[in-house]
């Protein structure tokens, strides 16, 4: 423990003891805190019912109120792809939900019900979490709660913060920005649109849709930080337009670098994942000038990891001829950095 913390604790200790004696809660402080948080968030949660119900697609998801006038934040999904969206509040009241707007790039939507003076989360008071922070997720997991039954609460910690595009190809999702990775098994059917809070019930994130890591087949439990959504939500509520769709294709340069123009010949592509070994170097080429040698193994291209010949060819096609390329190669047991200039 840090010195500072110990010192502060010693000052507070007498007060702490006094409080505990007075309140008679010496042993159940932890349970009470989580219980308090779990209960205060329930009145802000909603259950959303819409399209689906076929082929394992559930016709429900979760959401939460973000204004007293009935604005609801949730994820954009097929569930909302219908004229009849039913919103059920924590007290069991049923409303028809209207889509105010959506941002497919953030996979987020704002709905509205016709009501007033509703308990709600305030986006401006959302908190930022650090790895290891205790969290609660509140959602209608598996649709287990109906009517006025409370949503399901899971507890855990923030396992890591990462961005979904940090590993190309691992997470195939329109949203590629920062996420909280959670160690609670939070992202199961029905949970999308649920709330992530800290241990005091302060809003921190929006639970995302189910997402599988394409590289190792494991499911990711994650939430979008509220800070990523605030501007978009404000724009939607204020009636400012948001993009309706997002062009997923990365802009490819018209004149990219090629292995040939660089003067590098690779070993033949014979395996599913042929290791990218250099076979030979064209004489007087850029590659030769910069010191490439046969049998070099290419590991990184512009900080992108190259795990096979196929990846190498794909990545090179994304780099404009006028830009330089940084390459990390392995030669025996040494890592060597080489920069190939643009032309």
């Amino acid at each position: 423990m840090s010195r500072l913390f110990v010192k502060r604790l010693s000052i507070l200790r007498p007060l702490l003891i006094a409080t505990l004696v007075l309140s008679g809660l010496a042993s159940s402080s932890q349970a009470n805190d989580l219980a308090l948080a779990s209960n205060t968030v329930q009145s802000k949660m909603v259950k959303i019912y819409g399209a689906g119900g076929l082929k394992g697609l559930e016709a429900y998801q979760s959401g939460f109120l973000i204004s007293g006038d009935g604005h609801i934040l949730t994820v954009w999904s097929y569930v909302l792809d219908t004229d009849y969206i039913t919103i059920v509040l924590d007290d069991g009241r049923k409303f028809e939900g209207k889509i105010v707007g959506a941002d497919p790039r953030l996979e987020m939507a704002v709905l509205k019900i016709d009501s007033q003076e509703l308990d709600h989360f305030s986006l401006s008071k959302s908190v930022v979490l650090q790895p290891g922070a205790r969290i609660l997720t509140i959602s209608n997991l598996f649709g287990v709660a109906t009517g006025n039954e409370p949503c399901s609460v899971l507890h855990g910690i923030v396992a890591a913060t990462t961005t979904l595009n940090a590993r190309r190809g691992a997470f195939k999702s329109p949203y590629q920005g920062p996420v909280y990775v959670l160690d609670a098994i939070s992202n199961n059917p029905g949970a999308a649109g649920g709330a992530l809070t800290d241990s005091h019930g302060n809003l921190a994130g929006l639970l995302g849709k189910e997402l599988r890591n394409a590289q190792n087949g494991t499911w990711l439990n994650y939430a979008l930080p509220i800070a990523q959504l605030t501007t978009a939500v404000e724009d939607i509520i204020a009636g400012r337009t948001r993009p309706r769709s997002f062009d997923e294709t990365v802009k490819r340069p018209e004149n990219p670098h090629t292995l040939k123009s660089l003067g590098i010949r690779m070993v033949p592509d014979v395996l599913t994942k042929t290791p990218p070994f250099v076979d030979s170097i064209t004489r007087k080429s850029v590659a030769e000038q910069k010191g490439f040698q046969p049998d070099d193994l290419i590991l990184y291209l512009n900080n992108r990891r190259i795990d096979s010949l196929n990846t190498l060819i794909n990545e090179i096609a994304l780099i404009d001829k006028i830009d330089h390329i940084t390459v990390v190669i392995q030669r025996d047991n040494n890592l060597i950095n080489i920069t190939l200039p643009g032309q």
Partner: protein
Amino acid sequence: MIIFHNQQLPLFKQLLLIAITSTFVITLTKSLTAQDDLLAQEERALQQAVSQVAASVVQLEVLGGLETGNDGPVSGLVVSNDGYILSSAVNFRPSFTSILASTPSGKRATATLVSHDYNRNLVLLKVNTTEQYTTASPVPHTEIIVGQWSIALGKTYSREVVNQSLGIISATNRIWGKAIQTDAKISPANYGGPLIDIQGRVYGILTPLSPRGQNPTDGTDWYDSGIGFAVPLIDILPHLDTLKAGKDLHSGLLGVSLKSGDIYDLPAEIVAVQPKSPARTGGLQKGDTIIKVNDVLISRQAQLRHALGSQYAGNTIAISVKRDDQVVTTKVTLVEKLEPYEHPLLGVLPDRNFEKPGTKIRHIYMDSPAQQVKLQPGDIITHINNEAVADHNALRLVLSNFEPLDELTLTYLRNNEPTTVSLELGNIPQQAPTISPHATPTTAAAADTLATGLIDLKLPEEKNECVAIIPTNYRHDVPHALIVWLQAPGEPDNENLQAQWAALGEQYQAIVLAPQSADPARWNPSEVDFIRKTIDNVLSIYTIDRNRIVVHGQQAGGSMSYLVGFSHRDLIRGVAPLDASLPIRAAIKANDPGERLAFYAFNLKESKLAKASAAGLKRLTAAKYPVTAVQLSDKAGLSDSDRIQFLQWVDSLDRI
């Protein structure tokens, strides 16, 4: 505490004061819980522990390799300052080209795989760097207690910041004494990383493990389930010098067979001691009951597995047995490999239509022990070593207690006259016998409403397609062979399949089942389970002879046939690869006296797989499996005569 000095205060004022003070106390309570409640203190302590160990967790990147799979970064734990790293073997796919490790300065350096711990699914790496790493201290055995906080760490998402999952120690002595268990979420995000305690010490290295197998990936299907395993660091440290010297650690084997049955009920009574095994050298005998290993008392077989499970080859252990009311204690040194078991051959095929007690002979093998003692087709074998044997399945089981060259007496009936002969058992020949198809029962066939011909057997819960070819003369009272055909990647051609197999299947009483890969371009190793389901489905509908279930596959389908055969020993009796090699990752399991498995390989001389496939067959032969190899002349595939020879081999799999 508040003390009232003025006793003369009017009652309502007193009440007011109490109300005010209580409000004060409540406000105080609230502000205190907000800042410094136990939860927050605990969180700080946990984070303190995490930051203490974080520098000892390294990010590893494994590049290249023959299989696709987990391509993302993985984790490892520093075990010495000069850059030795322990990690889980699951992180290293076969034939990878490079390993990169993060260094204390935040750079990357290459790393070399130094050695394996095959018993505990770990590897030791050495980073090629002069930088100094920080090590973490291990938690001693006495302080690994169920219920304590445990935090699982990895460096998958970032090279600088660890990812974490919080849980408790949920069990110790798991997986036959090798591991501790945690309910923190263990997955590819932290395999190879440490499980730490709240004081920032290391309980162990996170790795998938399974009570059912020792392949590197066994146990990965339990990821994030609330059941995760860590191998105690304190158990590994004494072996670190061995691992650093590049010596692999293997499970230690003793070489005894125990009475089969419920391992949680039966005592550890030895029914067979393998030749040349440590048990044989140590003087253990058939009939002994093991009662103690080192200082651990053994009263059930499961306890013996616990006592031996964590032992390495080379370890010397003390074993006490009960022998005729005496206790005998001996010391044995466990070994990595035992002499493989080989099935003996009597040299007969049973008549499957025969129902009375005993085994009626359908066919006698040329030059076999059966022929030497002049057994004939139609003779009925009734006794082995003067003990009655009910039918051909029981006879096969009795003989699995013997090996080639063992001697026994056999009693048979000919024209109702019993004769007893002595013989020496032989070896299973490499050549398949030439036999005519088995006779159908002479009784009339019962009316049957089951579908025949080319039928669709797709399982509703699976996306894979699956068809079968059922002989049009199918009868429920005739046990059929089952040939599971796994085609080479490409679009299926069911009509061609039917043209090739329908007529022959009718002749040789065989059903052909063709499960298809979900992706027409490739077979995925995980589809082994789907294939098993399709077989179970056929077993539930049709009459299948459990002695003759064969997986036959071409190229990638052939590699799958090996995997299916080795994964489902209880079901598969034959594997018939066509132009395919044994997958590099497939560990050849020891030949099992009880669960028979034979191989029939079609090789193409011109194929680029020829060399690899021949090498695989050599390994199987060395492991004493019966291997039949045929050379195909035609590149186009099997001719009808190739198929007939193959069907005769399938027909002979119930040999005795």
